[in-house]
């Protein structure tokens, strides 16, 4: 099993989830803040300027079977891309074990 960690733009979440459709049976999302090539913005309070480096992003965690990784990455790329800096990154990790709390099942059937 693998874990796909996709960091995407918040407003693409809806489109990505739709694109993934039934290809996945579950995922978890976290609101994070990212720092990278995409520059932040500046805000002005009472005439004083403040630089905000961190950009809001969504992190999507999908645990999937080894064989699904490439297909899912393709879908993620197609649906999350706008072509501008800041589209995000996808990282893949090995998963050693998976357990379903409700049933105690283990392994790839869980996901």
């Amino acid at each position, binding site marked *: 099993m693998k874990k796909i960690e996709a960091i995407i733009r918040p407003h693409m979440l809806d489109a990505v989830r739709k694109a993934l459709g039934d290809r996945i049976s579950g995922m978890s999302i976290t609101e994070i803040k990212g720092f990278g090539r995409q520059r932040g913005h500046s*805000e*002005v*309070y*009472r*005439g*004083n*300027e*403040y*630089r905000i480096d961190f950009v809001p992003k969504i992190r999507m965690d999908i645990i999937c079977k080894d064989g699904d990784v490439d297909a899912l990455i393709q879908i993620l790329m197609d649906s999350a891309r706008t072509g501008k800096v800041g589209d995000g990154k996808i990282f893949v990790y090995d998963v050693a074990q998976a357990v379903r709390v409700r049933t105690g099942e283990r392994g790839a059937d869980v996901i």
Partner: protein
Amino acid sequence: MNTPVLNSGDTAWMLISTALVIFMIPGLAMFYGGLTRSKNILGTMMHSFIAMGVILLQWVAFGYSLAFTDGGSWVGGFDAIFLRGIGPDSLHGSIPTFVFIAFQGAFACITPALISGAIAERVRFRSYVLFILLWSTFVYDPVCHWVWQNHGFLFKQGVIDFAGGIVVHLTSGISALIACLLLGRRADLDKGIIPHNVVFVVLGTGILWFGWFGFNAGSALASNGLASLALLNTFVGPAAGLCTWITLEKLILKKPSTLGAATGAIAGLATVTPAAGSVMPVEAMLLAALTTVVCYFFVSHKSRLNVDDSLDAFGVHGIAGILGPIGCGLFASYGYNSIFHHQSMSALNGTSQLLLQIKAVAVVAVYSAVVTAILVLALRKFTGFRVSREQEEQGLDLSLHGERAYN
């Protein structure tokens, strides 16, 4: 105003005006609280709320007596401590004395709370409470007597301060500046501290503006044309301040901001306070607009000064407290003042009034600064005034008050 007959219309207006002024306290708490970081909002709100507690008790105990009984030119006496001798039938002009006491008591509460904006996010609660108690006794009560009590030396000279440009904004603004100079900057200032909830600031502004109608128009102490003028000025002044501030932002920064609109409105309100009953609406707009320009440039350049006036208590109230009363003098003219002001001063003319206003501002500013400096230094020495570095990091809400705003 001297016939001792109760007028139920005047009384109704003063009753609600008093409630309006008191409502400014939670407004100020929201305004200031939204400007701080989330870890300090409760501590900051507490700075306003506690004033409504301790200062009011002081007011009933002896503050009112010091400010408003006859005494001498410098301070009142002790005739009315614990409000003795005053009953529900006592009158002050056409209104019951009790409502006059409550109305003025609300002023006494809000004035020291304004100072808290300059020293937010870093002071000990205990020392703050002691400070405002002493400050009320040694700054607010006497200055109030000077300007508003008919034995006060500035009152007798004919100074115009309709609703408290000098008594409220100047005293608190100057003291704010001195206090933050002496107490130093917040530890994280260089990292950039930005308001954690601008919605609260805007809501606070709305509440303050609303309450300010009681503050200014209530200062007529009657329900009449003068009160109506003051009310209208309290509407047009902040409107002009608001438009001025965001126009400057639009021109200079390209982006007019909500916080700017709120700040401009408050600057306009503070400016119009001393003038509310003495100038016509068009002049009120001009005065508010000009003062707001000065506030804007001061506040937006304050990072160049080595001062951490956290929430711009001096930058807004202090500047308005200087320019408002002086502007009153500037706009003072035979015609207007004879209509609006103490009937006895019908011969007043513009220039002499202007000089008197400047003198009053200078005297009160120096007095406030000196007394505040003494109080702050003494408290810093004896009880400690700033929290520890660790407490500042953790936030006042948790470290001083044992609670957090949001869970």
